[in-house]
């Protein structure tokens, strides 16, 4: 847990520095990288024989019953990955709002669903873009938790 706390502090510090350059949403996207950084810290500081990977599979050779991660660690990983994905979707939503606003101001002509989207108010575009993340991100994280 000590290394996990250290990984969170490092990632938050980097996010704080990136915030000034790329903005809050994109900076907080890196929260998900805690999963790999924590394993890497375990490897370097505890001298454990592990190969850090995104799925955080158990280290060494374990039986089927042991093919899982500790509850606390999994909760921390899932929370941080979800927050990273939310911020990524918020960034994408902000870009979508800016693009549709610019398109409607420039009176650009689109066809099909893009024309519908371009005429919507900013709030609708933002809500549409983030709703997808609210359903898709936990679904993907749920699959990951279910598998290990």
């Amino acid at each position, binding site marked *: 847990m000590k290394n996990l706390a250290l990984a969170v502090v490092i990632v938050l510090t980097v996010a704080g520095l990136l915030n000034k350059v790329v903005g809050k949403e994109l900076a907080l996207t890196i929260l998900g990288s805690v999963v790999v950084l924590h394993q890497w810290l375990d490897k370097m500081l505890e001298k454990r024989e592990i190969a850090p990977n995104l799925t955080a599979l158990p280290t060494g050779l374990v039986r089927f019953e042991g*093919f899982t991660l500790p509850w606390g660690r*999994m909760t921390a990983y899932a*929370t941080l990955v*979800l927050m990273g994905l939310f911020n990524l979707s*918020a960034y994408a939503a902000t870009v979508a709002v800016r693009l549709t606003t610019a398109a409607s101001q420039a009176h650009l002509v689109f066809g099909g669903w893009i024309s519908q989207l371009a005429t919507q108010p900013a709030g609708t575009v933002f*809500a549409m873009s983030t709703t997808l993340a609210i*359903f898709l991100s*936990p679904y993907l*994280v749920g699959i990951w*938790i279910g598998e290990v």
Partner: protein
Amino acid sequence: MTTASLFAKAVDSSMSFFLIEPQTFEALFGRLKSLDLLIEQIALGGLAMILSGMLGFFMGRRTRLSKYLAYLLNRLPTNSRDVLIDMAYEEAQRIRLQESR
């Protein structure tokens, strides 16, 4: 999954609530900034996340065995891997033939 979903949603909504300026907040969410809205966002968003997360969790549980098998096979040399695959195929074939009789 439930804890992570609720915690992530609570932090995310609180950050939006406290960091976004009132005018921008109103434009994005279509309502005035209020504590009721924050609680509503956390409750409804958390519920949606828990439901989709649980669905993902059950999908993941279904593929857990194959994931574990892949994890084991990745630690074996190629020829051992091939032998195990052949054995599994022969066993499946034997059972299929038994069932068809």
